[in-house]
């Protein structure tokens, strides 16, 4: 099995000579390889066995998630968010990532994964401070065990590995689920994180949302691999390929990977095939690099529509449930809208807190300088008074 077509390449290896002494195949690679096709449940016979409660739960979250995405996008147009990297079209990945975890587990999201954080229970306003611009991380990561939204690509992956490893050393049954994009898999940190995880057999699940693009760069310019899931075998962990718009399939695969990790089976790499229906962020112009027709084919594979079809087929989408779902989503949106339309109260003096546990003398004197400037400003120049947030103009994560 080699493309080099060496005469005798695998025929003459036994019997005649001893292999190099330290040589032994370490693990059987076969079970590590992903299936040839992305795993799917919706629209297949296997969907029948799915628990109605789960399907309805997923549906509620997807609808809420979509509404969250459209509301956040609207807030950028109203100048209330500096920037928003939408996960419209990727809600099944986001929701499944949150639901696959137990309370003690940790989520490591990227800038695009605020929805996963919200689905895990984080207050949307707190999830959005980074993108509103009032503070980098707007929540206490320990409260919901959600690491800070990470912008430098793939750099959160080793954090997830370290945290999961530390928990395991301590004897805690904690799993970390780390999210990264297709583009992020090209970074060295992706490689190093997966390698550490496999060597340590750390309880981590790596979820790659392959949404086809890294800003404008299509997958074909990102990798020549058969699939991103195939990268798993090079680390000695199983790779799984899933239809990322099939919420129950995503949920099943992630839940299974989380269970395996929790039971000491080590890490898994999951590639979810999905699509970024919106532009990279509101600041991006997607028409420069892809056609409307391509987007349309993916709209036809919408995660909500796919699940709706299953629910309808199985008579699970009654009027009442549908209305309650819609209402819940609208409540989330209304609440978010309202609270985001209030200017956050900021204290510029915060800049000097938390650089270190105790302020250094140097920072104390810089803080005093700013304090004096602010006081002078408050007296002399009302137009630049402190406390009011200058609306952020432009920002791209």
């Amino acid at each position: 099995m080699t493309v080099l077509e060496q005469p005798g390449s695998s025929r003459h290896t036994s019997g005649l000579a001893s292999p190099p002494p330290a040589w032994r195949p370490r693990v059987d690679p076969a079970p590590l390889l992903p299936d040839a096709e992305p795993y799917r449940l919706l629209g297949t016979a296997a969907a029948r066995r799915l628990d109605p409660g789960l399907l309805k739960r997923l549906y509620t979250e997807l609808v809420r998630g979509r509404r969250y995405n459209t509301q956040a996008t609207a807030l950028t147009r109203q100048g209330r968010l500096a920037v928003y990297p939408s996960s419209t079209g990727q809600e099944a990945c986001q929701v499944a990532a949150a639901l696959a975890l137990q309370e003690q587990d940790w989520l490591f999201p990227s800038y695009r994964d605020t929805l996963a954080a919200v689905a895990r229970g984080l207050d949307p306003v707190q999830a959005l401070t980074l993108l509103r611009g009032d503070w980098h991380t707007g929540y206490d990561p320990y409260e919901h065990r959600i690491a800070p939204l990470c912008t430098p690509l793939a750099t959160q992956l080793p954090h997830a590995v370290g945290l999961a490893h530390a928990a395991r050393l301590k004897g805690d049954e904690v799993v970390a689920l780390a999210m990264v994009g297709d583009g992020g898999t090209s970074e060295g940190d992706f490689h190093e994180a997966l390698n550490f995880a496999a060597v340590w057999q750390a309880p981590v699940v790596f979820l790659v949302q392959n949404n086809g693009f890294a800003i404008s760069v299509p997958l074909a310019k990102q990798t020549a691999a058969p699939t991103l899931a195939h990268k798993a075998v090079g680390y000695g962990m199983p790779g799984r390929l899933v239809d990322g718009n099939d919420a129950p399939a995503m949920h099943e695969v992630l839940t299974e990977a989380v269970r395996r990790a929790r039971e000491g089976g080590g890490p898994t790499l999951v590639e979810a095939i999905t699509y970024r229906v919106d532009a990279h962020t509101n600041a991006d112009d997607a028409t420069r690099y892809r056609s409307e027709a391509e987007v349309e084919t993916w709209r036809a594979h919408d995660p909500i529509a796919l699940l709706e079809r299953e629910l309808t087929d199985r008579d699970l989408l009654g009027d009442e449930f549908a209305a309650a779902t819609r209402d819940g989503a609208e409540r989330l949106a209304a609440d978010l809208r309202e609270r985001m339309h209030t200017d956050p109260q900021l204290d510029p003096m915060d800049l000097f807190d938390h650089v270190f546990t105790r302020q250094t003398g140097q920072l104390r004197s810089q803080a005093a300088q700013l304090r004096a400037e602010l006081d002078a400003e408050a007296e002399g120049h009302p137009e630049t008074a402190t406390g009011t947030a200058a609306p952020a103009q432009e920002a791209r994560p």
Partner: protein
Amino acid sequence: MTTTAAPTARKPATMAQALSRALRDAMADDPTVHVMGEDVGALGGVFRVTDGLVKEFGEDRCSDTPLAEAGILGTAVGMAMYGLRPVVEMQFDAFAYPAFEQLVSHVARMRNRTRGAVAMPLTIRIPYGGGIGGVEHHSDSSEAYYLATPGLQVVTPATVEDAYGLLRAAIASDDPVVFLEPKRLYWSKADWSAEAPTPVAPIGRAEVRRRGSSATLLTYGPSLPVCLEAAEAARAEGWDLEVVDLRSLVPFDDDTVCASVRRTGRAVVVHESGGFGGPGGEIAARITERCFHHLEAPVLRVAGFDIPYPPPMLERHHLPGVDRILDTVARLQWESRWTEGRGE
């Protein structure tokens, strides 16, 4: 397609357009110039500086790379070894950090370690600095790292004209240049004779942007307009400030800087980069070493605070502004005449 067309009227252009034009002209003039980076192709870069290049020169000359900065710079090193002249785009300041080892251990040293046999005619374009409302990791002023690395030239334009001229000079240089583009000046405009722009040569010359006699403001990149504004405002206080645009941090133009400071006797260095360990310390120290007898006051610094870059809604408190510059100028010991008669 060369740049020798007859000069015509000056027209307004943004700094981004001037940079773009510089890339295009350099590629047209020299087939070994290759542009590479994340999103530099169809998208034209997130700041549109590479807009149109892929159309004009094809994907081989202007290529979207995989998303891996060490890989981008590392492969560019190999391309330079084979005689190409790569122009690498790092998408944002903080996203150049993954390429740090390639930069410090290879790009900066290749010529030296091979006794001149292997040249590194590489330009590394890095959009830097704040003031654009960027979220975390999108507003770093990382110049201190580069100027502490022997073997790198570090250049940053502050005007539309220099954006063109310095970028052409950087690409033409046989040694690596870290080319820092001030993000918040990308959309700054100036009348500019785009038909016959010229490279700035050699790299390493500061430029006096405003003549003055009371004190010298030394600055570069994003802080130049702020300093010019401060100099205007200072007239009301009776100060006639000279403003020097350093343009090149490495090589450093001691001659222009010291000539100015010797004339005015007072100096303030202004930059966005954090003060502690930032460029201002080096600049102040070397001025003091060279012009001690001429100084009426210590060289002072106005810099970003020594904190991680703030979130967008607070960044205006961090950035050196006109008031902070004037407050600092006021501290240049205008009353104390104890130094009188002290000079050479």
